[in-house]
C-alpha cells in the first residue's frame, strides 16, 4: 500500500515537473536564431559549428571543426536539457569555450530557440 502510494506520488511529481517545462515555439525561435547567424548556420561550419545533426550529437564532435579544448572536454550529448543549460550561460557552463556570448537568459526564449533548432534538424536543409 505504502509502495503504491509512493509510486503514485513520484509519478504525480514527475508529471508536475514535465508540465512546468516551457513549451517552445519554433516560429518565435526562428527569430531568436537570427542572433546566432553571425557565427552559425544550419548546414555549414562557420565561426561556430553547424547545427544540423545537433540533437544526439556529442559536444565538440563535428568532424573537422576546430573546437576549443574546453568544448572537446565537455562530455555531454546535446538534447533539450543540455542545450537549455549551455545556452543560458555558455561561458559559465563551459569555461574556455570559444562561444564568447553572454547567453540567452530568458527561459522562454531558450525554449523557443531549442524548439526551432529541433524543427530545423528535421528540415530539408538538414536532410541534404
Amino acid at each position, binding site marked *: 500500500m505504502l509502495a503504491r502510494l509512493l509510486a503514485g506520488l513520484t509519478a504525480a511529481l514527475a508529471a508536475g515537473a514535465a508540465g512546468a517545462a516551457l513549451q517552445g515555439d519554433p516560429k518565435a525561435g526562428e527569430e531568436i536564431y*537570427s542572433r546566432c547567424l553571425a557565427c552559425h548556420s544550419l548546414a*555549414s561550419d562557420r*565561426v561556430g559549428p553547424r547545427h544540423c545533426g545537433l540533437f544526439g550529437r556529442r559536444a565538440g564532435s563535428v568532424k573537422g571543426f576546430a573546437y576549443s579544448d574546453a568544448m572537446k572536454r565537455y562530455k555531454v550529448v546535446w538534447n533539450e536539457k543540455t542545450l537549455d543549460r549551455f545556452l543560458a550561460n555558455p561561458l559559465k557552463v563551459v569555461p574556455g569555450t570559444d562561444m*564568447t556570448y553572454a547567453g540567452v537568459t530568458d527561459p522562454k526564449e531558450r525554449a523557443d530557440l531549442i524548439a526551432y533548432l529541433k524543427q530545423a534538424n528535421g528540415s530539408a536543409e538538414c536532410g541534404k
Partner: protein
Amino acid sequence: MSFFEMPTPAAARRLFLARSGVVLSGAAVALLAGNEALAAKSGGKAGDVRILNTALGLEFEGIAAYQVGAESNLLQKPVLDLAVTFQGHHKEHADVLAKTIQKLGGKPVSAKAKYNFPVDQLKSQTDVLKFAAKLEQGAVSAYLGAVPLFGNRDLAKAAASILGDEAMHWAVLRQALGEAPVPVAFVS
C-alpha cells in the same frame, strides 16, 4: 538627405564615411590599437583574448562575405560601393582586433582559406543584400553578447563601438531592401 538620395555614388560614399565610418574606426583605433596601457590594465586577459579572437573570426568571415557579394556581378552601383565600404569597415575592425590581441599577448586567429557561403542561393542583388543583412544582424547580436563579458571595460567600450557600426550596416542594408531600417527600439 539620405545615402540613397545622393546624386552620385561618390557623394553618397563621402556622406556615409563622414557620418559614420571614419569617425567610428578612428575611435576604435584610439580605444584599442592606440592605447599602449591596455595590456597592463586588462583584467581576465585570457578571457578577453578569447572574446576578441571570436570577434576577429567573425570579422574575417564578414570580409569574405562582402567579397563574394562584390564579385558576384549581382550588385549595381551605388549598392556595390556600399558593400565595398562596409567591407572596408570590417577590415578595419579585423586589423584593430588583431593588433589588440597581440598587445594582450595572444595569437590572432587567421582568416579561413575557404568559407562555405550559400552562393547557389544568391541569384539577385536582393539575395545578396538579404544575406549581408542577416550577417550584420548576427554580428550585432554577437557583439551585444560579448560586451558584458570583457574583463577590461575599455575593451567592452571598443566592442560596443564596433557593435554600433555593425548596427548601422544592418540598418542601411534593410533600407536598401525597402524594409524599415530600424524595426525595433532595442537590439537583442
